[in-house]
């Protein structure tokens, strides 16, 4: 009989982040698909009581917890030991988690430690003919595969935003504490470093992703570049719309090649093959050009619109819902003016 461990961690406030509820939804669906396999929930955090209460109504067989100050922050040595201890305590054959940065850094090591196997960046989990199959992308989102495995335990790390999170009433949960033997810990977490207040990065919480392409820094109709104006227009739009900023690889790389650059654009903004593949609800691409593989950066954006001067551009044609063949400088100036009203 298969059994499932839904592995979650708390955030800095001791609550469960949204991806934890997504993992729980996947675990419950998987259990139903397997004909009623049991689901345990494994919690990691400084204090897991509030988090356990939040999933009290999820119908878990057991709630297992690893808690203590050393588990309040993401750190490989402590997180790997905690996760491995929880898997052993539950004797699970499947471990479902979401690919938060904290778990992404540790779950493959845990798979190795417990003698299991792992699939990461999973976008779908199903049971077909009694076998569990997962979907994931290969070659940086350029081809999609359906995979199944014989090995157990099988850790399945689901990308955040792929499923509807589980929701249920909070209650009073009883957590079974799991003891962890820690190795010598030689790493201390000093804290977080945020980009400066005026620096834009890819923010998953934004409704809209604004993608700037290399066209912004190229010579315009008058034969001149207009980089300061481009910066003003882009930052003006980001400020007015609260959009998140992404950049094409060619624009991000321009700085290393000595070309004109947008000062706020860094590798943290890069989307596509060697950058992020964000999952915003809406995406507006401006001055972006190119065929595959450049377009993979916004494959997972739901509603896509583009502004560029080439009606046949592979970035937009067949990939965007709407392509405005126009000068982005002119259009964005008018958009900003309207948003200010």
């Amino acid at each position, binding site marked *: 009989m298969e059994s499932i461990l839904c592995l979650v961690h708390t955030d800095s406030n001791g609550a469960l982040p949204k991806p934890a509820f997504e993992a729980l939804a996947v675990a419950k669906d998987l259990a139903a698909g397997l004909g009623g396999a049991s689901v345990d929930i494994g919690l990691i955090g400084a204090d897991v009581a509030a988090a356990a209460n939040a999933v009290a109504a999820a119908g878990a067989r057991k709630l297992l917890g690893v808690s203590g100050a050393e588990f309040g922050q993401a750190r*490989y*040595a402590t997180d*790997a030991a905690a996760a491995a201890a929880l898997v052993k305590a539950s004797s699970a054959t499947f471990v479902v988690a979401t690919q938060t*940065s*904290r778990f992404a850094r*540790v779950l*493959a*090591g845990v*798979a*190795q*430690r417990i003698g299991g*196997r*792992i699939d990461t*960046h999973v976008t779908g989990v199903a049971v*077909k003919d009694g076998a569990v*199959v997962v979907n*994931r992308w*290969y*070659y*940086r989102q*350029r*081809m999609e*595969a359906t*995979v*199944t495995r*014989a*090995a157990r335990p099988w850790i399945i790390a689901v990308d955040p935003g792929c499923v509807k999170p589980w929701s249920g009433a909070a209650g009073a949960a009883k957590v079974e504490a799991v003891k962890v033997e820690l190795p*010598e810990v*030689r*790493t*201390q*977490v*000093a*804290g*977080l*470093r945020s*980009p400066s207040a005026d620096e834009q*990065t890819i923010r*998953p919480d934004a409704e*809209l992703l604004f993608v700037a392409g290399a066209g912004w820094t190229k010579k315009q109709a008058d034969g001149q570049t207009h980089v300061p104006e481009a910066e003003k227009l882009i930052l003006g739009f980001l400020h007015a719309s609260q959009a998140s900023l992404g950049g094409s690889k060619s624009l991000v790389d321009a700085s*290393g090649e000595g070309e004109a650059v947008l000062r706020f654009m860094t590798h*943290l903004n890069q989307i596509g*093959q*060697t950058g992020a593949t964000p999952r915003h609800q809406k995406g507006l691409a401006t001055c972006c050009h190119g065929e*595959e593989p450049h377009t993979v950066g916004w494959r997972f954006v739901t509603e896509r619109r583009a502004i560029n001067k080439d*009606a046949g551009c592979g970035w937009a*044609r*067949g*990939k*965007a*819902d*709407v*392509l405005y*063949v126009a000068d982005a400088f002119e*259009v964005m100036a*008018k*958009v900003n*003016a*309207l*948003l200010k009203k």
Partner: protein
Amino acid sequence: MSIQYQIVVCGSIVPDPLQTLEPVTSAAGPALKNEMMLPAVLDPWAGHALFEAANIARQHPGSKVYLVSLGPKAKLQQVMMTVAQKAPFELIALDGPSSGFTEAAEVAAALAEAIKGIPGIDMSRLLVFGGWESASRGAGATMQMVGELLGISEQFQGVDQITIAADGSFEILERIEAGQHQVSTCAGAPALLGWATGNLPEPPNNPQVGMANMRVVMPALSKAKPVKLTGEGLTFASVALPKQQRETRIEKNMNADDIAKEIVAWVQQG
């Protein structure tokens, strides 16, 4: 006295990202169409790891960089012709598939074995580098497993910066959500770092470095240990290109005012 590090960079080769990729089914499972014909490059994030390793080695005289690479020998040789001009390193080649469809755990076992076999490897001076994900499998799994197999529990992924202090401790910036970095301090080697982009630009080609490297690259390739990856227990039910094609509404004649109004309405739509 500065620590003389042994920096082992794990990095394989991937098809040039600008190539068209198409999956096919081979006897050994999924593969890329004309895989052996596709031009290859050093995996981009592994490349960043190599450049960061070379930078640390330069700052700590007596340090040495090793590049452990698993791939078809002929393709490795082709890629090394370019990579060898970027930074001084000693190649440890493993002759086997570089496909993204291989099993991470098997690749990790082969890499860990190769690292353990480096003569004079010293855990107290060992830094293991690699890309935090590859451009092929893109799982972010192999390096963590290599660390486990080597018994390294100080691991960092999505690293953009390492700053080594005089006492051998170091500060590390790891990428986390929302464009933030987690800042950690580690007491010292051994440690494993899966690099994101880092801060260093790709070094220009240096023919002198290339000549020096190639003197050891060619012998390393000739004695590359064959590695067989079976993918036991892993079954691909399907591998396909995404077929989703959108019906794009192309507005060629709309004026800027109307476009702006339409975009603003769309942005503000709930």
